[in-house]
């Protein structure tokens, strides 16, 4: 197996890619698919916002103590907290879409040459396990949410309520469980989960835009 590292994945529903990437795992999935992609986009915007905020904070800190036109320079208060919290929210946003895109790494050694029937059977088991686990996590996170609400914990610098991050946590962990059921349904209807080699091939299809231009 193998993705030693973050692999670029094709996701968008353009015809040519969809055909290359082995059918319904990379595009479509109806309303659930649309929702997952929207949520992933929100996570992406969150990351961009984190990057922008960090740059502003670095500039502010670099010129700390000076002021231009009455504007005092200084780091963005609680910048570290914002990065941590923002990253957590972004990761929760990415989980549902990653399941639809089959982004998670698997070990193919013993199943590389397995026939489609066996791979589908194993895919059903893995999706069921994934759905059950993410549902469990969504449920446990609601308890975490409840406790944060009860205890009123806040962050160190900004005093932001800790429960905030649990809301997208619960919502998108639940959506991930739904995404698992969606891929499960597709597998039951005949789709064959891609091997790592096939996934890699599909990734390569969109790994870089530049040469197409």
């Amino acid at each position, binding site marked *: 197996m*193998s993705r030693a*590292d973050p692999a670029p994945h094709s996701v968008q529903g353009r015809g040519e890619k969809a055909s290359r990437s082995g059918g319904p795992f990379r595009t479509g999935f109806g309303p659930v698919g649309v929702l997952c992609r929207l949520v992933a986009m929100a996570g992406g915007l969150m990351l961009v916002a984190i990057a922008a905020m960090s740059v502003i904070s670095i500039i502010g800190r670099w010129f700390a103590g000076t002021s231009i036109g009455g504007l005092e320079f200084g780091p963005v208060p609680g910048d570290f907290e914002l990065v941590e919290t923002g*990253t957590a929210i972004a990761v929760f946003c990415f989980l549902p879409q*990653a399941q639809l*895109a089959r982004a998670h790494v698997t070990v193919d050694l013993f199943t590389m040459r397995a026939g489609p029937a066996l791979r589908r059977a194993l895919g059903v088991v893995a999706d069921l396990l994934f759905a059950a686990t993410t549902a469990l996590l969504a449920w446990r996170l609601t308890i975490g949410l409840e406790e944060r609400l009860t205890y009123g914990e806040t962050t160190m610098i900004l005093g932001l309520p800790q429960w905030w991050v649990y809301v997208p946590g619960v919502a998108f962990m639940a959506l991930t469980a739904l995404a698992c059921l969606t891929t499960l349904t597709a597998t039951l209807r005949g789709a064959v989960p891609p091997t790592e080699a096939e996934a890699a091939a599909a990734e390569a299809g969109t790994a870089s835009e530049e040469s197409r231009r």
Partner: protein
Amino acid sequence: MSDTTIGLLGIAGLLVAMALRVPVGLAMLVAGILGSMAVAGPMGIMAGLTTLPVEQFSNHALSIVPLFLLMGAFAGRAGLSQLLFDAARDWLGHRRGGLAMAAIGACAAFGSICGSSLATAATMTRVALPEMRRHGYHDGLATGVLAAGGTLGILIPPSVVLVIYAVLTGQNIDRMFIAALVPGVLAALGYMAAIRVQVMLNPDAAPAVPRIGWSERLRGLARTWPVFVIFVTVIGGIYAGVFTPTEGAAVGAAATGLFALVRGGLRRGAFTEVVMETASGTAMIFMIVLGAAAFNGFLALTGLPMQAAETIGGLDVPPIVVLAAILALYLALGCIMDSLSMILLTVPIFYPLIMALDFGLPPAEAAIWFGILALVVVEVGMITPPVGLNVFVINAMSGGTPMRDTFAGVIPFLVSDVLRILALVAFPGITLGLMRLLY
């Protein structure tokens, strides 16, 4: 049943689940949850799960990961790989095997702004493979070069795998990056030497292309300025103390994003693709991080890592033998596993073990040295059969090259890898020299 037995059963269960195509992160999570229940009852782990995902996802040091992924995705859209390859071709192309060397050089340069091996391989393949084919390079050589070159994405800082190692062991990320620099450049030079040997043995595999004039070479080099600016800003800024590594990644993402935007690389839904690429990579990594947290918590409950460290520490063998055994195990695991999973699974066990041994280095240096060695050996797994993801990607993109040819094309680079690993083990100064100089 003793805790030790449960621990061993947990490891066995994890391996079986992975062999049956349960995603690695999920397999670790489930094994960790069930194992913890077996050792300490369901109460503890169920309570732990109420906070575990939030804790793991909001780890400040890991925030660097999605930002580096975003940076790499933007870099892919900014047309930088083409500029880099063109410049390298102008300088090296007229030699025999020169285009292949140019591909290696461009991979190294691209690796300096991209933290991922697969993204580097895929991006450079689009640019360099058609060119090599046009000039009559053999497919096996051309695809092998790019598969090996892709590993430079991780070997040359910034590097996602190094970040994870640093977080697991409490090392400074900036020192790890500095330490990775010389071994990374050595890897690039080693790969070029491997190409040289290959074309000496088989001159037909890699014909030369016409020599380019100096003024044109300089102009091409000048066009690659964004890569140098971004690399110097990010790594230099981290080293000079303008910002922390995570902030450096944020700066890099912002800079490459702006550059991609200016170069028109974000038109027509390309930004969506950047996000989806980052989303998949991020979710994949954090899923493994989450699973590893659960599994390592379970292992700690069983006491296995401590026992293993004690047992091996008690063996009457020289430390270097233990190190060699670990590296050999990594090479073997690398044939079937990916580097990140290997690091997350094994470092909590091997790191205390290594730190308990005496390599004649101060502990802080031993930690960094072992980290770089681990990085290098796990990254070799990206190109070893039967499962080598870089090989899969490039082979798929090449359209029609038999997988066997690509794996055969990789062999000279594997030889170069093994020689480099031996050198890094024998002379820790290669890894630690620059760091000693700068800190």
